[in-house]
Structures are given as C-alpha cells and as structure tokens.
C-alpha cells in the first residue's frame, strides 16, 4: 500500500491539522508516513497545502508531485492542484465552496461533499476539514476510523480536548455522507 495525497484550502480551514491527524493515525498503525507542509510566507493570504505519504515501505522523497488523492477545501486550491492529480486519482471536494462548473472538465473520480454546510449543521464550521476527511476515508480506507479517533485524542489535549467530540462527529458525518 502506498498513498500520496495533498490537502489544500484557505489558511484557517485546518489543512495542516488534517494532514497531521492522518499522519498521526498512520503512525499509530505502524505505517511509514511523512507530512510535508507548505510553510512561511507561502501560506499567507492564499492557500495552505500539505503533502502526506502513507506507505507500508520506507518512504524516500517526502514530496508529492502526482498525488493519488486531492482533498480540496476551497476553489483556489482546486485551480492550483487539480492538474497534478494522477489519471486514476481521487478528488474529494468541499462542494459548499467550489463551483460545480469548475469540476466540469475534471475527468478523475470526483467525490463532492458539502463539507462546510455539514460542519455548520454540526455546529462548528471549522470542522469542514474533518467532514472531507471522513468522506475520503470511506472511499479510501488508508487508515481505520478508530486510529483517527485515537490520533485525535493525542493531538487535541489540554484546552483543546473538548474539541475531540465535534471532530469525531464531523469525520463520522463525512464518512456516512459518502455511500
């Protein structure tokens, strides 16, 4: 198994957290994993993105040039990254923020989930990233949901511990949306 993915969205949409969470979950399962964030001035005033590689074997280059999966949380990220996707790649799109016509010419497997909308219904728009992650994990179970929940408990501690529940709910909602 080897999965290369890019998560992208506005700064503040939790792109880095999504990637870190996935990496943490993969590590808990004993898999090889790398997480490479876009950093510095690059992420300011534009899109933030992060590359994650999960593999059963040692990982060489941590850079992802042709992802197997794209998790796209906003329109500018789609414009920037969709051409990089592998031919047989998987696209998970937050359809609340991405115009349907923008997806017209994209031939790859597209999974649209109104992530922001679902997150808002759950009571916290900021967990849209987790909704999209849930959808992705349903289509591509690269890690188990239980590992992701365990990873949430590791990453959200102290003041943030109270956020574990809403994040879990959002992941579940996204997972169940994709049927």
């Amino acid at each position, binding site marked *: 198994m080897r999965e290369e993915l890019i998560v992208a969205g506005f700064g503040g949409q939790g792109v880095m957290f999504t990637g870190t969470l996935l990496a943490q979950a993969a590590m808990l399962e004993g898999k090889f994993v790398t997480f490479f964030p876009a950093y510095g001035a690059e992420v300011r005033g534009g899109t933030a993105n992060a590359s994650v590689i999960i593999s059963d074997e040692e990982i060489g*280059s*941590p*850079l992802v040039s042709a992802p197997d999966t794209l998790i796209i949380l906003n329109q500018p990220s789609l414009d920037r990254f969709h051409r990089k996707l592998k031919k047989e790649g998987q696209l998970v799109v937050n359809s609340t923020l991405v115009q349907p016509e923008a997806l017209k010419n994209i031939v790859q497997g597209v999974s649209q989930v109104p992530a922001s909308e679902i997150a808002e219904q759950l009571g916290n728009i900021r967990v849209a990233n987790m909704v999209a992650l849930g959808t992705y994990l349903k289509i591509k179970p690269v890690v188990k949901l239980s590992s992701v929940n365990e990873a949430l408990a590791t990453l959200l501690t102290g003041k943030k511990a109270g956020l574990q529940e809403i994040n879990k709910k959002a992941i579940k909602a996204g997972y169940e949306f994709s049927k």
Partner: protein
Amino acid sequence: MKKLMKGNEALGEGAIKAGCAAYFGYPITPQNELTEYMSKRMLEEKRVFLQSESELAAINMVLGASAAGVKAMTSSSSPGISLKQEGLSYMAGCELPALIVNVQRGGPGLGNIAGSQADYFQATKGGGHGDYHLIVLAPSSVQEMFEMPAQAFALAEKYRNPVMILADGVVGQILEPMEEVKVDSTYHGDRSWVLDGCQGRAPRKIRSLLMEEGALEEHNIKLQKKYKVIKEQEQRCQKQNTEKADIILVAYGTSARVCYSAMLAARKKGLSVGLLRPLTLWPFPVKAIAELTGTAKAFLTVEMSAGQMVEDVKLAVNGRKPVHFYGRAGGGMPTEEEILKEIEKI
C-alpha cells in the same frame, strides 16, 4: 515508542537531550520552529535561551558560551549562515567547539524559502576567511535530526572545532515518526582551555591573533594536522545496494531520499543501481567512494544545487570512472522520474 515530530523540533529536542546548555538564534524561515521550540524547552530545562539581535550577535554569543565551557549552539538558514561566517572563522581559529545548524533555503541573495543544498561549498570549504574546516553532518530524516546534535557535540568537543549540521528546508519542515533514542550528553575532550575564572590556576587566553613571527604559521600547521586526523577517522556514509552496482548514486540529505526512491524504481526495471549517502560532508567519505570505483561503472551525483558536492565526488573517483551530475538550483527539487531518466541515459 514512536512520536510524530517536525524535523526542526526534533533537532531542538535532540540538542537538549545531548546536553546543550545555551541556544542563541535569530528568526529566519525555514528554521523558525527550532528557535521557537528552544525558546520554550530551554527555559523549561532551566538552560540559556536568547533571541539575539542578529545572526552576527548569535554566533558571537555562542563563541562566548563555548569559551566558558558549555555545549552551545545556534541555528539559521542560508542568508543568516552567511552572516555567521565571521564568527565561525574566529571559532575555528580559537578552536572552540559548538554546534551550528543550517536549514538551507534557495539562494543566492534572499533567494526563496524552499529547501535547497546550495550552501555545500560554504559549509565544507571553510566558508569564512582563512585555512580552516568545519566538520559537517548531513541529516536526511527526522530521526537523524534528533540524533545528530549529540554526534555533532561529541565531534566538536573531541576535536575542539565547530560542527555544522547541514540540513535543508524539507528535512526541517517534514513531520515523521521518530524514536527518542538515548543520546550521549557527556562533555568530551579536555577542558584545560576553558575560561571560567583563574581560581587556583594560571590565567587563560583565547585568541586567534598571532602576530609574533611564525606563530600563525605554526598554529595553521597544528590545525592542518588536526584536520588530517579528522579526515582519516571520521568519514561516515550509508551505502545501499552499492556492492556490485553498475551505477552509484551519490546524494545527501533530502536529495538522497529522492535518490532512494529513484534507486528502487530503477532496480524494479532491472537496472543495477546503488546509493551512497554521505553522513559527513566534511570530511567527505572519499575512501568509501574510491573503493566503489573498482566495481561501479559510473557515478551519478544528485543535488538540490547547480553542482557542488559533485566536485568532491570527482576528486574521490579521481578519473577512474565517469561522474555524472543532475541537480536543480534555486529551491528546485529533483524528482524521482528525473533521476530515473538520468540513470537511463548513462
């Protein structure tokens, strides 16, 4: 137990576990997480952290702390490392141990903040004025970012010489699982030169200015003797599939990781390819490369630069086999596919 950690932070924790008593630094991307990490952890450990007014000040604070006999370090990225060259030359001249970390970014000038390997010449050939060398280590994973500070301090103290960890933006920024293995935190080597007040002993002086006739030449001869010992005893590298391989890839740091992927891809295609990854860039692993000139048909050096380490590979191969080069400068990253293409061309 494994832990998910960022390269820059792993290096900070590794330095703390290695007994680093004082950190001085000035913010610059892509190594800020290291300075930030130290600002918290060093104070938690009741050790010295100071955000200096410049890289010039930082390296000279390191000079002072090192002269006072503690494990001291600074970190920066390429433009900031240029500023530190003055202090490094003095420290090499005064034979002061210390750890200097360069998380390299694209250059020349302000360049960009992408990972790069364009400071190889500066790191390995002296960098500042005068005939001197730093010992240079090259990590390629978060695990090595954690483990190398202890190795660096040990070498620095053993040889009374500044040691540089030459990382890059990629290995600084990635998160990977790593293990907090136990590292050496003892102070190596003699301390008969430390300035801590002359109680019960003769006063000591630390200086690189030697104006008496012949004194500086004598000092240089002594330094060169030390460098010769280091060259003989401290060459380190990692070899993968190099025995009987036709083509040897030579790469360090992040480009070695891309080469690793390219090597696997090439071997799947039935090509006989191995990888030699220098762990010390100075001293350069000349012996290991020279040994391979018997069995290898060609060498391919891959760098995130316009071609710097390739000169040392050529010196090591010494004309016995062809040495090829592939690199990308200005923050560009060679890809697995590009390297594979270069291998197939040979």
